[in-house]
């Protein structure tokens, strides 16, 4: 009873300062707050011609905040390595304490629907990746859809067919596709314009900027998909 009261008191002690701080925040979307009076209008006015992307989110993520995103994709890759390291710590001689439930046969309905929808999902994922600079979406979103598609397919296909979807050998390279694509594009900027991760700004070289954005988007998409598939496989077979 005393313990319960202590927990409630602690929760209130944490909640009250947080709620007080929240009440001091400017209203959501207010045009008079500092973030909305300096940086945002600039991005909105110049993003389309400077950033090489009509979708302002992509222009900010890949162009204005390119360094942040490069760090983020490296974090995703590193976290996959950490997850795999934890999953592979389990020694083969240490048998699981609970017997895993036997694999049930997949229902005919699920198998049929996944197989029929698969090409359309794949096309949608590729569309989202390649159109990231025009429409909402991009590498992260399309890559996740692609990864989810392969996971869904490997639930309904036989083990050999599922493994053939992403062979073991190129998998290791493809998992690192996002940092590699960022590094290559960044180095291209360093060698050609003398600035790491430089995107050309004038109208004549616009297509080069779009090409660089597309390379990064494809890298992020392929890398993200492979990371998700790898974690799924490690959890399933371990």
């Amino acid at each position, binding site marked *: 009873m005393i313990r319960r009261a202590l927990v409630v008191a602690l929760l209130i002690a944490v909640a009250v300062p947080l709620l007080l701080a929240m009440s001091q925040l400017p209203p959501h979307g207010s045009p008079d707050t500092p973030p909305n009076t300096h940086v945002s209008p600039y991005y909105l006015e110049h993003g389309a011609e400077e950033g090489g992307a009509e979708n302002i*989110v992509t222009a900010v993520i890949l162009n204005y905040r390119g360094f942040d995103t490069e760090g983020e994709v490296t974090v995703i890759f590193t976290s996959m390595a950490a997850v795999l390291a934890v999953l592979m710590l389990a020694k083969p001689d240490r048998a*699981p304490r*609970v017997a*895993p*439930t036997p694999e049930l046969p997949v229902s005919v309905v699920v198998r049929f629907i996944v197989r029929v929808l698969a090409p359309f999902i794949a096309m949608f994922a590729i569309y*989202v990746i390649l159109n990231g600079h025009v429409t*909402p*979406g*991009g590498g*992260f*979103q399309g890559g*996740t*859809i692609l*990864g*989810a598609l392969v*996971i869904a397919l490997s*639930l309904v296909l036989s083990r050999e067919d599922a493994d053939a979807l992403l062979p073991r050998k190129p998998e290791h390279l493809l998992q690192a596709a996002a940092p590699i694509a960022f590094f290559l594009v960044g180095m291209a900027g360093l060698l050609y314009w003398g600035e790491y991760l430089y995107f050309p700004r004038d109208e004549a070289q616009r297509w080069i900027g779009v090409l660089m954005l597309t390379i990064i988007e494809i890298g992020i998409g392929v890398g993200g998909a492979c990371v*998700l598939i790898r*974690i*799924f496989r490690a*959890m*399933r077979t371990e």
Partner: protein
Amino acid sequence: MSTIFDITLILLLIACSVAVVRLKDLLAATVVFSTYSLTMCLLWLHRGAPDVAMTEAAVGAGITTVLFLIAISRTTGRER
């Protein structure tokens, strides 16, 4: 109208999160959690963030659910 829609979604979110904590059956909790993600996805879309909505639908409702299901299939599936 728009505010009513938002409030409905937020109430659904609160109901889902309470249910996830209270449910003893982990399979049911996973399904409710994926409902939470889909509601969140609608909310993102309604607040004008289609990028985040797509990520939420694919990661939150799709992939995390699959990973949770695999984890449950390797345990007893009940919370003690």
